[in-house]
């Protein structure tokens, strides 16, 4: 397997390829290689929106080769948190990179005028994108599709106006329905005047022993489709959790004022599936098909004339733009998701920023003059629609502040105790207990998926766990996910990829690893990431936890600051930091 890094310098308009066998051998691929390239490319104190700030995409040894190894990781310096930026997307990107022959892509510099990059195998072209600057993310895909080759095997990733306008949580849309959602990669694109990448390739991968490859493939495939390991994602999808979390009193509602939503049934995964789901599709190489697409049909006249939009949905947007904003209808949520898709905003951050703003307006911290008379009230879909569009445009000083995240806006206007962020990243949809809070706070990218604290809380709801047991679980997940994210697998398939299966799959592509090797790799990757975080100013001992977390009852009852402090103390001790 060729292990190449493609470098693209937008300032110079040049690209070149470097074989980095050692880098991949030592750090596997994916996030392991990503963090090392970030360290090479991004000196201490780099402005994340400056030409010196790099964008790094990397895949790993299993992408395109084994089932459900479908993700690509983007590594960058986050303009939202000012430290480690790391985000994952599915779609067809990892496959396109594999067959184009690049396991990593590093983008440097800043173009003179708007451009997009076309990568077709080893052929890399930087092309003028002036005529599509300002166009929404969906239409950008439609236009580039007609301009570029590789139908059926390419990936088109692009930003919308929010990224162009440097909204600090702008996303990059991947193949229409997937995203590099979190931590503002879209703004880094915008700062480089980079509108899109189109990637396709026709390479073939030779495996050392085709027979062994087929055996391992068949086994993993069978586990994926014939067991219940992934059934949840296959059927109703992630949104099945709306009802579950609601029953558990863990569904953040109205900016975490409540942990259960009286109208949850109306926005449940079951409701979406029954009434709006029209199809499902999958990332290339995954037989599950977890991407759920709803039809949003709305009349625009009284003469039976309709607009029909196809919108993808999942648990997190239903929380952030739904229960969290008191939205009582599936249509309302789909409309808000659609606005985020077009403008190119991260749905999770956008929802949490709006829920802070709603409370801030209610409490008089901001005025209708600030909001340009846009009504910010729970369940006001039209008001929220206008507000999202204003954020994407940074229409005035207030919306510019919202465009920098809830933490920034609260520092400016007040309300820091109900600006629901951890590590400056707007939080995900779980108020399950202390492990969720601690997990997101200590996590390398302050994401619920760093270590799945929400899942540890839910385990503890069935069988009580003490603080130490929870911390042990968090550390275990922190490390093992670093390995899985180096392959790069979809976290929904983590049940398929046991340690033994990972070793077998790697063996089939000619990479020999032991359990000890993998555990060591996980720890090393975590350590390198924390080195970068600390270098850029992240300080776990001074991290702010909004008081709202302690005021609203969670799945595990009221969480106390003492419990969280104790867990953080244990965490630092076990990491050897105290």
């Amino acid at each position: 397997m060729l292990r190449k890094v493609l470098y693209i310098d937008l300032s110079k308009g040049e690209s070149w390829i470097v074989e980095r066998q050692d880098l991949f051998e030592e750090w596997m691929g994916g996030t392991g290689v990503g963090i090392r390239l970030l360290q090479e490319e991004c000196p201490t104190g780099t402005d994340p929106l400056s030409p010196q700030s790099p964008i790094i995409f990397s895949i790993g040894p299993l992408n395109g080769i084994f089932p459900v190894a479908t993700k690509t990781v983007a590594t960058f310096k986050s303009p939202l948190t000012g430290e480690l930026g790391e985000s994952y997307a599915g779609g067809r990107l990892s496959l396109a990179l594999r067959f184009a022959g690049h396991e990593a892509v590093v983008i440097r510099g800043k173009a003179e005028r708007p451009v997009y990059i076309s990568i077709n195998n080893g052929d890399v072209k930087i092309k003028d994108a002036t005529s599509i600057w300002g166009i929404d993310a969906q239409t950008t895909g439609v236009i580039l599709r007609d301009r570029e080759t590789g139908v059926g095997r390419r990936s088109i990733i692009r930003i919308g106006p929010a990224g162009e306008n440097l909204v600090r949580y702008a996303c990059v849309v991947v193949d229409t329905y997937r995203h590099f959602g979190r931590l503002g990669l879209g703004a880094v694109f915008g700062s480089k005047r980079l509108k899109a990448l189109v990637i396709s390739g026709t390479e073939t991968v030779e495996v050392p022993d085709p027979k062994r490859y087929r055996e391992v493939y068949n086994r993993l495939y069978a586990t994926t489709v014939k067991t219940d390991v992934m059934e949840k994602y296959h059927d109703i999808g992630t949104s099945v959790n709306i009802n579950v979390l609601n029953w558990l009193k863990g569904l953040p509602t109205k900016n975490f004022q409540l942990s259960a939503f009286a109208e949850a049934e109306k926005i449940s995964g079951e409701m979406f599936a029954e009434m709006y789901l029209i199809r499902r599709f999958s990332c290339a190489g995954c037989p599950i098909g977890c991407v759920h697409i709803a039809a949003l049909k709305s009349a625009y006249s009284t003469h039976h004339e309709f607009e029909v939009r196809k919108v993808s949905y999942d648990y997190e947007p239903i929380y952030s733009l739904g229960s969290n904003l008191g939205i009582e209808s599936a249509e309302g949520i789909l409309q808000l998701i659609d606005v985020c898709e077009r403008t190119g905003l991260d749905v999770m951050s956008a929802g949490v920023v709006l829920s802070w703003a709603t409370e801030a307006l209610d409490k008089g911290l901001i005025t209708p003059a600030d909001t340009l008379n846009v009504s910010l009230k729970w369940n006001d879909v039209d008001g929220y629609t206008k507000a999202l569009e204003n954020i994407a445009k940074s229409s005035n000083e207030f919306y510019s502040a919202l465009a920098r995240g809830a933490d920034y806006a609260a520092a400016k206007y007040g309300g820091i105790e109900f600006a629901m962020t951890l590590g400056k990243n707007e939080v995900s949809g779980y108020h399950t207990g202390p492990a969720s809070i601690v997990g997101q706070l200590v996590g390398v990218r302050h994401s619920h998926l760093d270590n799945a604290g929400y899942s540890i809380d839910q385990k503890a709801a069935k069988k009580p766990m003490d603080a130490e047991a929870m911390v042990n679980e968090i550390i275990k997940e922190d490390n093992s996910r670093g390995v899985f994210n180096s392959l790069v697998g979809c976290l929904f398939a983590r049940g398929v990829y046991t340690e033994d299966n990972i070793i077998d799959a790697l063996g089939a592509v000619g990479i020999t690893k032991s359990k000890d090797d993998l555990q060591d790799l996980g720890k090393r990757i975590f350590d390198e990431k924390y080195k970068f975080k600390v270098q850029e100013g992240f300080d776990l001992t001074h991290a702010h936890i909004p008081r709202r977390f302690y005021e609203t009852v969670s799945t595990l009852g009221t969480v106390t600051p003492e419990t969280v402090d104790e867990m953080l103390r244990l965490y630092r001790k076990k990491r050897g930091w105290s």
Partner: protein
Amino acid sequence: MQESQVAGVADLEPDKKSEVAKAEVTNSQKPKLRRRLKVAHPERCIGCLGCMFACSRIRTGTVSLQNSAIKVLTQGGIEGDYRVVVCRGCDDPPCARACPTGAMEKRPNGSVVFHKDRCIGCGSCEKACLVGAISFGKEKKPIKCIHCGACVDFCPHDVLTMEEIPAEGG
């Protein structure tokens, strides 16, 4: 016919060769029928490309989309519908008629076999197939479905199925 002349089969691992051979034996035991791959439910396709990977993996031992004889295409991007392109195993195959060298040969039972050694890479067969089921690989030789059915097991939604049809002259 020598097995090694059949497209793709030469590259197969021994165990898969016997599977392909088995399909042929089955044919000879039931002379009145031949097996043909069919796109039974195209609207159920989720675009996982599992069939394409299966085709390359099992037929050629590689990881590749290019080496696949079956193609899943998008129309209007991911938000459009998928199009699943497979060889229809025509009763009166235009690919065989178009071939100037007999490399695409219609066999007595109606199926078409590709003889790589006779192929001059002219592309006539590709042009003759309106469906677009024949593509040219890196070697500038056609990649054609051999109706072995390997892809069917890797379709999670029964888009693909094998059917048995009356063999010509059977």
